[in-house]
C-alpha cells in the first residue's frame, strides 16, 4: 500500500486516494508517425524491473496528475514531481543513480 506525496498539495497520499496512470514521459505520436513509432507510443510501455517513472493522479484529492520515480521491486520512492515536464528532474535521477549506478531512464526496459 503505497504512500506518495502529491507535489501539488504536499499531501502524502495513500494509494487508495490515487489512480495509477502507467509509464510517464510519453511523447505523443500523431498522424504523421510511422506504424512502428505509433505502436511504440501506444503499446511498448516501459516495464522495468527496478526504477520506473510513472504517472499518478491525485484522484481523491486535488485531481492533478503527477509523476513518481518508484522501484517496482522494492517500492522505494526516489521522488515525485509535477507532470509538466518532459524528463525526470536531476535530483530524482541522482537519487536513483545513488542506488543503481549508471541508471538512465530512456534505456530502461
Amino acid at each position, binding site marked *: *500500500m*503505497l504512500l506518495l506525496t502529491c507535489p501539488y498539495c504536499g499531501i502524502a497520499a495513500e*494509494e*487508495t486516494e490515487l*489512480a*495509477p496512470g*502507467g*509509464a510517464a514521459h510519453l511523447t505523443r505520436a500523431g498522424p504523421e508517425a510511422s*506504424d*512502428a513509432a*505509433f*505502436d*511504440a507510443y*501506444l*503499446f*511498448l*510501455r516501459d*516495464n*522495468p*524491473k527496478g526504477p*520506473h517513472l*510513472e504517472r499518478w493522479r491525485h484522484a481523491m484529492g486535488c485531481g492533478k496528475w503527477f509523476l513518481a520515480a518508484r522501484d*517496482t*521491486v*522494492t*517500492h522505494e520512492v526516489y521522488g515525485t514531481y509535477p507532470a509538466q515536464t518532459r524528463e525526470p528532474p536531476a535530483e530524482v535521477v541522482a537519487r536513483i543513480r545513488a542506488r543503481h549506478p549508471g541508471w538512465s531512464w530512456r534505456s530502461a*526496459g
Partner: protein
Amino acid sequence: MTRYSAFAIAREAFRDHLGWRRAWASPEPRAAYDVVVIGAGGHGLATAYYLARNHGITDVAVLEKGWLGGGNTGRNTTIIRSNYLQDPSAAIYEKARSLYETLSQELNYNIMFSPRGVMMLAQTEHEVRGYRRTAAANALQGVETEWIGPERVKALCPIINIHGPRYPVLGALWQPRGGTARHDAVAWGYARACSRMGIHIIQNCAVTAIRSRDGVVTGVETTRGAIACRKLAIVVAGHSGVLAGMAGFRLPIESTALQALVSEPVKPCMDVVVMANTVHGYMSQSDKGEMVIGGGADGRNDYSQRGSFHHVEETVRALIETFPILSRLKMLRWWGGIVDMTGDRSPILSKTPLGNCFVNCGWGTGGFKAIPGSGWAMAELVARGEPGPLAAPFSMTRFREGRFIDESVAAGVAH
C-alpha cells in the same frame, strides 16, 4: 519410472514407500540443446512436452530460475473455462480445456481436472446482453455454454444470494464443463512426463543474457553457465519484458500484481465456480475445503509479488455481498503473482524480431486454463518456425496492425 496407480501405492505401502523414484530428473545442464525453453511454469513445461510428443523434438532444456511451477502456475485460482467471446480465444482455450479432460490419463498424473461447471453471473442488463452474445458466439465456436436464469443459478449454487438488493442475479453464462484443476499438479505432471521423454528440466538456473549472431539466436547465459541452442522459447509470464530486453526487443507487456486468497477449510458448500464481474470477485471451493478467492489486479507496475491490500478488501466486499454466509469465515492466507498484461489483454504467441526466438506471454490474469492449448500451439510454432492456426492470431504484430483480440468487451475480467 514407476507408473502411478492404486496398485503401485499398495505395493509401496508394504515397503514404507521407500521405492518411489524421482518424479523428474535433476540433470546438469548440457552445453547445447536443440531448443531451450525459458521458464518452467505450466506454459513452458507444456511447450516442451508437446515439442516431444507432437514433433519428436526431445533435445530440449527447460530453464527455471527458481523451482518449477513456482510462478503464476503455482499461485493462481485455477479456473478453467473456454467461454470466450472472440474466435481466436475460444479456439485456444477450448483446445486447452479439451486437453485438460484427459490430461491425467495422458500424463499418468492426477491433475484433478474437475469439470464442476463455471458460472459467470450477470448482475446488470448490460452483462445479460454481453453473456447472451458470448453464448451465441460459443455455440458456433464449438464451446458448450448456456445462458441460465437466476433459479438455475440458485439451484446450482445455493449459497448465492440471488436477490442481492444492489445487484440481483439476472442469470449467468454457464459452462458445465469448465472447472478447476490442481495447479501444482499440472506443472508437476508435465515435468514428470517431460523428464520421462528425456527433456532436461533445470531448476535454479536463471537466464541472465540471450546471445545471438546476425539476428539469430545462438544461446543463453545463465547462472549455471552458457547454454547454446538453435531455437529459443521465452515463456516467463510476468518477466517477459525483462527477457525481451535481453533479446533486444520490446513487448507490449506491463507487469502488475494480481492477488488471491484462501479461507480456512470448511465442509463442502459450493460445488461450482462462480465469477461475479460486476462486483468483481470470483470463488470456488477446493477439494480440501478452502474457499479460493480472486479479484482485481493492481493498476501499477510491480515485480514484488505482494500487491496492494485494498484490492483484497474490494474483492472480499464483493463476495460477501454475493455470498452472505462468508462473513464469519476467516481468511488464512493471501498472496500475489506478477501477471503480464498486454495492450488488448490477450496473449502473445509469436515469432520475434530475433530469429529463431519465440515468445509466449501475455496470459495475464487468465492463462492457467490455457496451459495445454498454449503448449500445443507454442510447440507447433517453435518446431515449424511458423504459427499454426491456433497461434496465428496471437502474433505480436497485431498491435501495430490494429488487429486486437479484446475479451474485456464481454467480461470485465478474464480469469
